[in-house]
């Protein structure tokens, strides 16, 4: 893991250039440009707000009552999730997409998923800034709490990078991995209290929440952005441990398989 992180750090300029190419490439030739990074999740948030507040209002919305209403509640929780969702979409195929480059230049392949995660983080940061502007306009922003999010963001990126390393490598052996990731993603999403408050979950399902490392990140985001109750130390510790474990496991898978990449691309 150390060797992998060291090589990515050494080629950070390359990661930056791949990241820039990815972000610019995605929004090139579109009039709204980077704003799509916000509009796309806004649409999703709109659907959830409509669904949960209009159709199933009693249990869900009452428990999720926060300053700014249910929309802000979902939006705040969506920000960390965007990192996962963005990476899940692009990580499995990223080595294949850069196959020509990887075949030609002796660059460390680990920089490619790193750029994918950075792009996903960019979407989340853009969405977060928009959220901050909306919230700041109503004078409710707490800047100090936002600083506390920085180490959590690092942990979240570590986890997503670990998972991205693993799926990008394994997808070379069988494209099933990419399909499996898209199939599994909704389960993870609904197991994470993004569009509903944790309290709305039936008591029997509490264990699922306790195992989900995203729970800590989502709670922390709401704490910093909306003044919701802070996540418990246990939940945060679990998120941190799971993140580091995911990074270690992903890096291990990547290092074990990278010798095959040139033959599989």
């Amino acid at each position, binding site marked *: 893991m150390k060797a992998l992180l060291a090589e990515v750090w050494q080629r950070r300029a390359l990661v930056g250039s791949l990241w820039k190419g990815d972000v610019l490439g995605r929004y090139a030739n579109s009039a709204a440009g980077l704003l799509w990074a916000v509009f796309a999740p806004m649409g999703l948030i709109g659907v959830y707000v409509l669904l949960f507040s209009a159709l199933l209002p009693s249990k869900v919305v009452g428990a999720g009552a926060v300053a700014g209403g249910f929309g802000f509640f979902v939006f705040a929780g969506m920000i960390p999730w965007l990192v996962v969702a963005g990476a899940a979409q692009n990580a499995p195929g990223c080595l294949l997409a850069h196959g020509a480059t990887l075949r*030609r230049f002796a660059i460390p392949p680990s920089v490619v998923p790193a750029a994918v995660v950075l792009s996903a983080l960019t979407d989340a940061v853009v969405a977060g800034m928009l959220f901050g502007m909306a919230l700041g306009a109503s004078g409710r922003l707490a800047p100090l709490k936002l600083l506390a999010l920085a180490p959590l963001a690092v942990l979240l990126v570590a986890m997503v990078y670990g998972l991205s390393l693993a799926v990008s490598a394994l997808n070379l052996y069988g494209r099933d991995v990419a399909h499996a990731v898209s199939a599994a993603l909704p389960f993870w999403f609904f197991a994470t209290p993004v569009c509903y408050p944790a309290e709305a979950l039936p008591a029997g399902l509490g264990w699922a929440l306790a195992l989900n490392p995203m729970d800590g990140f989502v709670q922390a985001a709401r704490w910093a952005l909306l003044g919701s109750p802070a996540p418990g130390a246990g939940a945060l510790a679990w998120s941190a441990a799971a993140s580091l474990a995911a990074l270690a496991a992903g890096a291990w898978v990547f290092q074990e398989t990278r010798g095959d990449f040139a*033959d599989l691309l």
Partner: protein
Amino acid sequence: METSPTSSEPARPLVRVQDLRKVYRFYASPLARVRELVAGRGARYHREHTALEGISFELGRGEALGLLGLNGSGKSTLLRILSGVTRPTSGSCEVAGRVSTLLDLAAGFNLDLSGHQNLDLAAMLLGLGSDALERLRPRIVEFSGLGEAMDDPVRTYSSGMVMRLGFALAVHVPFDLLLIDEVLLVGDEVFQRQSLRRIRELLSEGKSIVLASHSLGDLTAVCTKLLLLERGRPALAGPTGEVIQRYLESAERQARRITEGDRLLQGTSVPQETLGKLRIAGVDLLDGAGRPAEEFASGGPVRVRIRFRAEEPVEEPIFRVQIFRNDGLWLAGTNTARGELALGRVEGEGAVTLEYTQLNLLDGDYFLSVGAWPDEYPSYLARRPFDLHDRAYVLRVRSGRPEGGGIVFSPHTWRIEN
């Protein structure tokens, strides 16, 4: 591959390859891979292809190694291993320096970006700082001759322009070892000469080059050493002159149906469909007195005797002889119909002889195609020969300084005008 920093010891070669082996595994499906993993050691759910085996060589600074061999003989795999992209299955490959590659025509360019933007991108991928790139940029642009076009998207370039940019980039970035696959002889004559000059310049600066090609001419122009690969194994290796000599000699031993063509195309040539009724039993290259000869002098006579056997009676067959240079350039050709030799009805064994009263070729090895045809101008797709020995015989021509240079012998005299 291990890449260690440049050593100051003069004794250490830049490239050291030892007992290199590369095996590709093919799985019928991803599931087969999983099955093999689950079944543990001993179980095999894949098919193996040995792309390289037993490759060992060293290359010092300022040396150029030529890799010669058919498609699929392992040249490209060896280049990819040297570039550090592919790992060998076993054995070692050490390059004590930086590598620059020119392994495909597109050179990894992004077609949507301009020439200049592609230089930025390539510099990033090569780990070249922007300062270093800005120092090199004017020289790269000048060498490529692209000028204003550097601001246009690469999509709008002709393939020659793309190649020139790729070549210009590859030979100007800092490197110790340059890997080139096949592309040297692409591009127009002027650019080819410019490229060759730059390559010689690089060699004299102490850079090393590994060049893969089918073409002997290409390799001898640049390389100090040659390695002939046959199905991934080293067939011949050594200094260029020696290898070429042994290569041609061993070729000649193959019952005179020899040649680069025959040897290079061994096992891969498209089976020639023939009508079969009339077979070419043998071809003899004879001197003016009708004696078999190994070499022929420019300006002297050559006889090509074609021995044939007709399995059944054939009406008015035509025999054709063509002479090619080793790169496929057709130099001369004639046939019995053009020579107004009517063979009538042919049956059993017989022979025809073509005599060149004066051989107008200069020093070199040329390849003869000998065929027996039912018509003079058959379309290559629609019609088949009775028999065809395509570029199967070597005509070795020797000439001296007085005969001149080039490929065509033109009898001449010099004199002083008053």
